[in-house]
């Protein structure tokens, strides 16, 4: 088995109980990188597993990340004057009065970009776990991965030839 690439040998591999996952060699978790140490998490989380408590932090943070900007906006709303009038609330079009519906038709070019993006996004997503496991893969698996990438390359070349990537 190829060793993981690294500049240093400071990361110690701890022996763990043998499960099927032990075939896959990854770096052990170092406690000191989280805001709470792992021992603490195991000890006090009242039913949360270690992974869940990490994401509980994300949940708390997302709550605060919504509340603080909202409070700033609400504060601005109450501190500022409120004198709406017809001209002020009108749509800004450089002084010219608005003609026609706002929601005019747009070209499908934007949708095409979104389409190509979606396909490549999904492709990249699938490549990430494979990249994590890449050190342990056999040759067959490597060829399967490369084949997967080449399929998408064909798609990109096709769209290139057909001009879907051109911005008209």
């Amino acid at each position, binding site marked *: 088995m190829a060793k*993981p690439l690294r500049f240093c040998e400071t990361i110690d591999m701890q022996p763990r109980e043998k499960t099927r996952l032990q075939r896959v060699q990854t770096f052990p978790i170092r406690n000191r990188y989280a805001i709470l140490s792992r021992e603490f998490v195991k000890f*006090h*989380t009242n039913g949360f597993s270690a992974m869940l408590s990490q994401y509980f*932090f994300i949940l708390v943070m997302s709550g605060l990340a919504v509340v603080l900007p909202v409070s700033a*906006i609400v504060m601005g709303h109450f501190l500022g004057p409120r004198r709406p009038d017809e001209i002020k609330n009108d*749509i800004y079009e450089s002084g010219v009065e608005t003609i026609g519906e706002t929601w005019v038709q747009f070209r499908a070019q*934007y949708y095409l970009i979104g389409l190509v993006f979606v396909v490549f996004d999904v492709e990249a997503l699938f490549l990430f776990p494979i990249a994590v496991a890449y050190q342990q893969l056999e040759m067959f698996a490597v060829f399967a991965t490369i084949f997967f990438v080449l399929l998408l390359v064909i798609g990109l070349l096709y769209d290139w030839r057909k001009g879907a990537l051109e911005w008209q």
Partner: protein
Amino acid sequence: MQITQWSDVLSGWLMGMGLPGWAAIAIVYGVGSFILINYGMLSVLLLIWITRKAISRMQDRIGPNRVGKYGLLQTVADAAKLLSKEDITPYQADKIAYNLSPVLAVSGVLMLLAVVPFAPGLSGVDLNIAALYIVALGSIGIMAALMAGWGSNNKYALLAGFRVVAQLLSYEIPLVLAILTVVLLTGSMRFGNIVEIQSLHVAGFNLGLGWLGIVMPGALIVFFISSLAEAELTPFDLLEAESELIAGFHIEYSGMKFAMFFLAQFLNAWILAAVGVTLFLGGWQGPGVGLPVIGPLLGLGYFMIKVYGIYVLQQWIRGTFPRIRIDQMMSFAWKVLVPLMIGLILIQAIIQKLPTPVAIQYVLIFIANVGVMAVVAYVLQKYFREEQIRTKRSFEPKSLIGAMQVSDEGTMY
């Protein structure tokens, strides 16, 4: 006791007060995220000051110098002014989308701070999937731009929203693929690991200079270019193309809501710089971070120096380069960066399976990176030279002056 153990101390104290475990955890997490979010929102004041000073120096101006020492408080004054501005909602705006969009734009960026490793032992959480988390939360900003464009009931805002979304989508792919090269090399998506791997031990002393950007300069450059586009900075700042799209998708916003978009944009540039530093420039690694007491402080210092350095570099580019056209921008993403990154990944995947020692693989990856970049640079140069000749030819005087000349028949046409 390390400075990073504050959370254990605080929660132990709270539990001693008789709080249940989950409440103590919630309070500690709340305090931690409050600090992170406020750091994010307040550092923007500094970032805007840096931007204005840097740009004005490049344009041979002094920049803000009235409010506070060196004009440091200018941004605070601006924020206070924005706070006292009227909050305008245009007629027939889609109220939900219009009001939700600025909040989403900011909180989507603030959430990214949760995984940034500031120093050894100092980060919000060290997720197993941090690399993908960064990419996934970027999509909130895209939705926010679409919502702002749609909700404002304004043609220009919607058009700008479309264009910004097209730009962000196009450059997200090279960005993701550049991150993928790092994951492929390190075999880990955890930022803690990725930073740790970039140390360099010489005789038992951590020099901290084993940066991945040295091994993969190509991926680093692609990441930097795409992060410029993702942050909507100047070569790619079609968002603020005043001459074409008035001001972008946030044209109808005023007061604090406008400030939120502004904040999100500056913070996004900073965070992309921080992610780039974490992935490619060693994060907090530097000489002496392994030392017992002073190490974390040194690490924080290195990280901040690197991130603000990259930020100033971004502003330098912003002050120097002209804006490029939207079709050039799209072509550059899809026809240059994406094929380049796919090629780099394929070559790197093959090299990493060669039966050679790791050190030789690193050298080969470096050579491949430089080689691919050289090929791309050559092809681009050739293409642009042909383009230049073509443009010159099409502007060659044919009709006007040619018509002035005496024709064969001897009459003026």
